[in-house]
């Protein structure tokens, strides 16, 4: 259904369609998500009024769902910028319809990461003290610094490739939308000079965001590993968290892609080959994640230190065993079973595996935060944690609001980068051909290098 489309180059109307027209399905979904988000907001006002005592947090488990969500959301944010930047820098041509969907996840989800921290504060009214009296030695201040840098950089990185598309929309929209797109497309006319500057800007940002993204989740892990607590104080937490972040981020990206593909009929743009390529990356990350998890738990077991052992066995055989083994199944067994087999590595299969990974990675964050707190070094204050309706509602509200914002974004901006897809058609094929040719041994004198793609070469402009 996607290969022999008669109007393959129809001006990419289907990509403009979601922005210019909105159906009933969108409003139904939006009202439902808004209701869930409103319920979450009510739960938060309730918590503000009566204090954090309305949650299931206690002594010793003073961090719970909110911090889990914080780590999870910041992890999801690695979907976008990092994956998109790496694929851009590697000149992976299949990235073209994916990057925008990915970068949008990053920017939107970061607000929920930061928001989770604010929800977790006992005194959110004093938040500004972090700026006013900040202590550089505190890993939380490192978090604030690196997440705000990341948010700035990834917003820029989302915005730059959006400019040509905004200009395209400017020429098609009317009314307030026209004014909006005129204002934010910054006078883009698509001149070669503008293209040259834009591409330079994008490349610079793509290089910049990679170290920033890596630093973000490393610093998040340091919130835990800088303390002396058993099974937190670990040197591999930085890379372990970054791996988990990319892993869960990719899963979120695949689900988002499948959702927009279905809702906006983008089967011709988001093809099984895109899902397949991402699935292979996801599979790699799954194995890498397992490697880290295994190393982390084996060293804790082998060393046999009492405090670490208490946490370890609480996870493996104790009260957290159901979550622990569910995590292993969801993060390793299911993805491996589905995606290592070519016959089940279909779009539906890949989306199932991704959903499994998302749940599994949330559990992984939970299992990092809670069991350690429940089993402190001094065995006098041991406790369990069971969240109340407040935490469940706020968590559900946060997820609903995120999905809603993502949907609204697709209504304001094209979720597939139109100009980049066109560029792929016009220049990418030729460039890829030349690149592959350059990998091969130079032709011996006498043979004629073609410099053209056989068949499509005629349509490719020289540059």
């Amino acid at each position, binding site marked *: 259904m996607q290969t022999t489309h008669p109007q393959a180059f129809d001006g990419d109307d289907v990509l403009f369609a979601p922005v210019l027209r909105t159906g009933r399905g969108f409003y139904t979904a939006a009202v439902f998500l808004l209701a869930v988000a409103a319920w979450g907001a009510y739960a938060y006002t309730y918590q503000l009024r009566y204090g954090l005592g309305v949650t299931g947090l206690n*002594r010793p488990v003073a961090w719970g769902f909110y911090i889990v969500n914080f780590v999870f959301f910041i992890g999801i944010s690695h979907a976008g910028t990092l994956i998109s930047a790496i694929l851009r820098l590697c000149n992976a041509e299949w990235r073209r319809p994916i990057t925008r969907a990915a970068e949008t996840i990053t920017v939107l989800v970061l607000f929920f990461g930061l928001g989770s921290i604010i929800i977790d504060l006992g005194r959110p009214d004093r938040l500004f003290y972090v700026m006013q009296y900040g202590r550089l030695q505190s890993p939380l201040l490192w978090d604030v610094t690196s997440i705000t840098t990341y948010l700035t950089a990834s917003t820029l990185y989302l915005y730059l490739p959006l400019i040509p598309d905004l200009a395209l929309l400017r020429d098609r929209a009317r009314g307030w939308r026209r004014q909006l797109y005129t204002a934010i497309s910054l006078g883009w006319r698509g001149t070669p000079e503008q293209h040259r500057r834009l591409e330079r800007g994008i490349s610079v940002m793509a290089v910049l965001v990679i170290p920033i993204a890596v630093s973000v989740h490393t610093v998040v892990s340091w919130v835990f590993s800088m303390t002396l607590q058993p099974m937190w104080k670990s040197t591999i937490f930085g890379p372990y968290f970054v791996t988990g972040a990319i892993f869960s981020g990719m899963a979120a990206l695949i689900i988002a892609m499948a959702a927009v593909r279905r809702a906006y009929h983008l089967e011709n743009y988001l093809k099984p080959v895109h899902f397949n390529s991402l699935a292979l990356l996801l599979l790699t990350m799954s194995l890498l994640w397992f490697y880290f998890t295994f190393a982390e738990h084996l060293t804790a077991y082998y060393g046999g230190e009492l405090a670490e052992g208490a946490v370890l066995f609480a996870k493996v055989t104790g009260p957290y065993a159901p979550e622990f083994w569910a995590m292993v199944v969801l993060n390793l067994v299911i993805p491996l079973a589905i995606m290592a087999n070519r016959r089940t590595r279909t779009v539906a299969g890949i989306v199932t595996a991704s959903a499994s990974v998302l749940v599994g990675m949330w559990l992984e964050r939970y299992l990092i935060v809670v069991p350690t707190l429940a089993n402190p070094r001094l065995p006098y204050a041991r406790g369990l944690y069971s969240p109340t309706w407040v935490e469940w509602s706020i968590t559900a509200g946060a997820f609903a609001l995120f999905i809603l914002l993502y949907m609204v974004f697709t209504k304001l901006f094209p979720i597939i980068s139109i100009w980049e897809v066109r560029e792929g058609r016009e220049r990418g094929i030729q460039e890829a051909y030349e690149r592959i040719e350059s990998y091969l041994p130079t032709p011996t004198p006498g043979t004629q290098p073609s410099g053209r793609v056989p068949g499509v070469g005629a349509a490719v402009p020289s540059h």
Partner: protein
Amino acid sequence: MARWGMVIDLDRCTGCQACVVTCKAENNVPVVTPREAQRGRLMLWMTVIPEVEGEFPRVRARFTPRPCMQCDHPPCVKVCPVQAMTKSPEGTVSHVFARCIGCRFCVQACPYGVTYFNWQAPTWPKDLREALNPDFAIRPTGVVEMCDFCHHRLQHAREEARADGREVRGEGEYVPACVQACPARALIFGDLDDPNTAASNLAHSPRAFRMLEDLGTSPKVYYLKEG
């Protein structure tokens, strides 16, 4: 400058919990309902940890009073993002309630579990409310609080000493409430750097040890092993 420290003689502790009650009254520590206490919201800046060792007939009960360890390298101070946890030049760790944003990082960082979070608005039964200590502020919802060696008592002692034009004496003038209340004299308090105080002598005794000493936090609370 004095370096205030405490020595707890485990041989003398009878487990009477006078220190626990005194501390609650002295520092206006909120009272929680039994149901909330069951949920892990009990607040005791000073607590006595009971341990029962061995099997009948060789059973032994042991009581370990546990105030804030007042570390020389306090993990709670380092992680506080707003400098609400502070260590004074005299080495005492105390907490500025009015600045605390309630992130509870100090709660996670402390290996001894001595920091307490105000999950709810503080409450007291009527009789206790009338007996609140006017020398010490009560804390609002959503901030952390913990033992600071009764810092307000040090301020009193310092004012009196200043009126006489001298420093606070290393022993006797300034003691936290728990030390004053202990009927068995199991808690000894004083300047650890002054070689003439009982506290500094006992801290150097062969019986002395500190809790989780290998973590490198260097507590200023010493325990004396049971003989």
